[in-house]
């Protein structure tokens, strides 16, 4: 299985680190897309089939929670694994996000191993 992955975060540093973390795993990755907020991500999702999506919560334009709520309303969270990587949190929020269909939650900072495990767990992908 070769993966297409979408990273949604307003921080260019986080996008670069996450891209790097994904590249050093043994996962077979075809393409990594990047978006700086929920609106940009929606445009990418309209044109691309993505296997897993990592999103931040605190972002300008359309924040992560609004973005996930939109995905949930559109029924996308049923087939597209959504993993939140964020500094914002608190147990009530995590619970609310799970009800919207979020499959995983990572509190920053993250490690490449965490990311690899999440991809394998939620896509069924094997390592190369």
């Amino acid at each position, binding site marked *: 299985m070769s993966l297409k992955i979408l990273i949604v975060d307003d921080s*260019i*540093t986080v996008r670069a*680190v996450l891209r*790097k973390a994904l590249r050093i795993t043994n996962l077979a990755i075809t393409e990594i897309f990047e978006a700086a907020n929920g609106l940009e991500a929606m445009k990418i999702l309209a044109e691309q089939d993505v296997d897993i999506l990592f999103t931040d919560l605190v972002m300008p334009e359309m924040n992560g929670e609004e973005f996930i709520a939109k995905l949930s309303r559109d029924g996308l969270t049923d087939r597209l694994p959504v993993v939140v990587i*964020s500094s*914002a949190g*608190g147990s009530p*929020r995590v619970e609310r996000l799970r009800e919207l269909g979020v499959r995983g939650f990572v509190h*920053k900072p993250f490690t490449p191993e965490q990311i690899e495990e999440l991809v394998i767990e939620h896509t069924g992908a094997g390592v190369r």
Partner: protein
Amino acid sequence: MMYFGQEIVSVIFLDISERLAFMFGDPVAKEKFETTGAPWVQSSVSFSGGTCGTLTLSAPRDLCLEIAANILGMDPEELDDGLLAEDALRELLNVVTGHVVPGLQGEDEAFELSVPSFRMLASGARDELLEDPGTICYELDDSPVLLNLAIDDDAD
């Protein structure tokens, strides 16, 4: 003397700096704190929930480039993008704040964070910040850094 929340902030800031940016530091007494003539920059994040306030991180701009390089696993010389330095400071503060707020109000309470702001910091403003009782001084990889915690008075 440490004010409310400063001990939590101090421990978390050093821990996150180490884990995210591979930088090591120590608190420094204000009377021994030495600033440099280099330009300084500042990022702030507001938080709201059971506790409301603002966390502000100020540092020489050169240090931000090192933070960016360390996070990305590159040499500072490889980074000629000023935006990355700005972004790295904002992200470091964002992650620190995300750990500080649960430390202040407890894990079971929801909270919101603002998008981190960024600005250049004039030397006068830096000196004022140094006088603020909510400011903690650090040396991070031998570079001076100021971290300020301001808790809103009307917060529960």
